[in-house]
């Protein structure tokens, strides 16, 4: 064995040599901390006047149920006969291809048509959200016409108009987690159920559509009637869905599609551990 002599080179002081990697890591950590919003929790100042406004807003009716003007009935009938009757029957009592619509109410029809699920090309698979075939007025006309085929009933709700001005997002969150997140997931991204059915994403739903779905229980979804969730609670959930679920606050700066902790963990592992490895290699190169 032989140990070669080597000229003793002058190294920079260890403190200085350690300074650069240390600085890089500290900067990365600081940026991460700031973007993660750990210090962004400053609570907004709420004046007494605003609190009074909020009380007033909460006192107003959270949901008003109404039908569009009946003058649209003939338009609705024409649209129904041209687009719906081939499956649901000219009298709307249903056929072997599609269910009875008499007595389902305007909210049910408005939900299915305004989300583009109806008209449907293939009735053997679960309908998916797509751009609606009809504009708002036409959709309401069809809903109005179908609703006019049966006498009004509590089981056939009219179209809900949700006032979210006084909604309580915290209550909405609690109720959402308990009643909705099981199927739609806490991020509202939707998920698979059994036998090929799925709970759809909530990210494009309007206020009225969320309330309609809750009150009428389309497809495999349970019905959440006023005895289960009051109008107040329903409005809180609607506000939570269209406010928080559809506009999530991503404190980390990157939502990753709101698809949940597994994907987030994977990205953290890949980028976080990958970055640490790069730093380790770099330190090794310098040694």
């Amino acid at each position, binding site marked *: *064995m032989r140990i*070669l*002599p080597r000229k003793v080179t002058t*190294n920079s002081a*260890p403190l200085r040599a*350690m300074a650069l990697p240390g600085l890089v890591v500290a900067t990365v950590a600081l940026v991460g901390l700031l973007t993660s919003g750990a210090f962004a929790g400053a609570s907004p100042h709420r004046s007494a006047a605003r609190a009074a406004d909020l009380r007033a807003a909460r006192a107003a009716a959270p949901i008003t149920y109404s039908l569009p003007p009946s003058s649209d009935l003939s338009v609705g009938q024409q649209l129904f006969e041209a687009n719906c009757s081939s499956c649901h029957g000219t009298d709307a009592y249903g056929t072997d291809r599609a269910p009875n619509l008499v007595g389902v109410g305007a909210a049910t029809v408005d939900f299915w048509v305004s989300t583009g699920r109806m008209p449907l090309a293939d009735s053997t698979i679960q309908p998916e959200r797509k751009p609606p075939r009809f504009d708002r007025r036409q959709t309401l006309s069809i809903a109005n016409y179908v609703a006019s085929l049966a006498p009004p009933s509590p089981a056939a709700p009219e179209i809900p108009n949700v006032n979210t001005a006084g909604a309580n997002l915290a209550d909405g969150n609690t109720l959402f987690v308990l009643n909705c997140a099981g199927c739609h997931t806490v991020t509202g991204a939707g998920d698979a159920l059994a036998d090929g059915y799925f709970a759809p994403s909530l990210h494009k739903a309007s206020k009225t559509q969320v309330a309609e779905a809750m009150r009428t229980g389309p497809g495999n979804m349970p019905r959440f009637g006023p005895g289960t969730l009051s109008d107040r609670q329903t409005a809180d959930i609607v506000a939570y869905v269209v406010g928080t679920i559809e506009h999530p606050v991503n404190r980390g700066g990157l939502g990753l599609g709101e698809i949940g902790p597994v994907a987030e963990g994977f990205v953290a592992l890949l980028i976080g551990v990958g970055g640490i490895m790069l730093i380790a290699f770099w330190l090794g190169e310098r040694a």
Partner: protein
Amino acid sequence: MSGVTTEGDGPTHSPVAAFDDPHLRPYAQHPGRAEAAIGACLFAGVLGFVAYGITYWVGGQTQVEGITLGVGLFGFGFGMAAWGKYLMPKGPFVEERHSIEGTDAEVETLSNAVAERGKAVFHRRGVLGGLLGLGGAAMGVVLAFPVLRSLGPQPKKTLFVTDWKRGAHLVDLNGRRITVNDLEVGGALTVWPQGFVGTSQDQTMLVRASFDDVVTRPGRESWGPQGYLAYSKLCTHAGCPVGLYMEQTQQLLCPCHQSLFDVLGGGTQVFGPAPRPLPQLPLYIDSLGYLRAQAPYDQPVGPGFWERS
């Protein structure tokens, strides 16, 4: 004097290393300063671990835990890496191909020198060694916290019974008593026994499958008045909340492992890993129209456990 004495090929019997060999010097030009810096790193690491432990102990806060654990691991790791780089013999040590095997005397001399040198290194760096040990101990202790916490307290009888008693009112999350008119057909609601809102073992899925009485199984003739059926919300497989009520197919789905239960058939398993049907809560409607429990669950709810018969 140089410790390197070999010239040319072939083995020699000269000593190959000595204390003043420049290759055995630390890489750092000022070992004292390096020692201080490394000591500071290790000490910061110790502080980080201790702060993490305290944070965890007093109740925890995710960001603070992350930061303190990060400081601990980083300070500790950086200190160790810097120690390896700046305070260990710097080399280079080159082994030439034709003299792979040293003589016994060479080997002995070198190993003696290295061993002695190593001892001296450790002896001299007593403070760093202590800090390293302290940090390791602190890290080991705080990492054991979650494990230790999971060991107690003992569940005793709580796995066998719930708070559902004969006559208990069904209430929702806000404590409101459920009446027979509250759910529409196709409706679903999570309920608890009155006075126990929010408890995990008592949570029960109440669904309404019909306007008429529903008999799910022989012997349960009176359990489903006016179409109301109540099942424990705890999956019998792993205890996840079975809250996914598929109203068209009348099935309850567990989101964790896709166990599927038949609502109209007494909660029997249709698919998935669940070993037992969901326990059904017998209901009755009192004279004021309130939904109440006829009796407690007739079996332990949730997943299996050792003592479950």
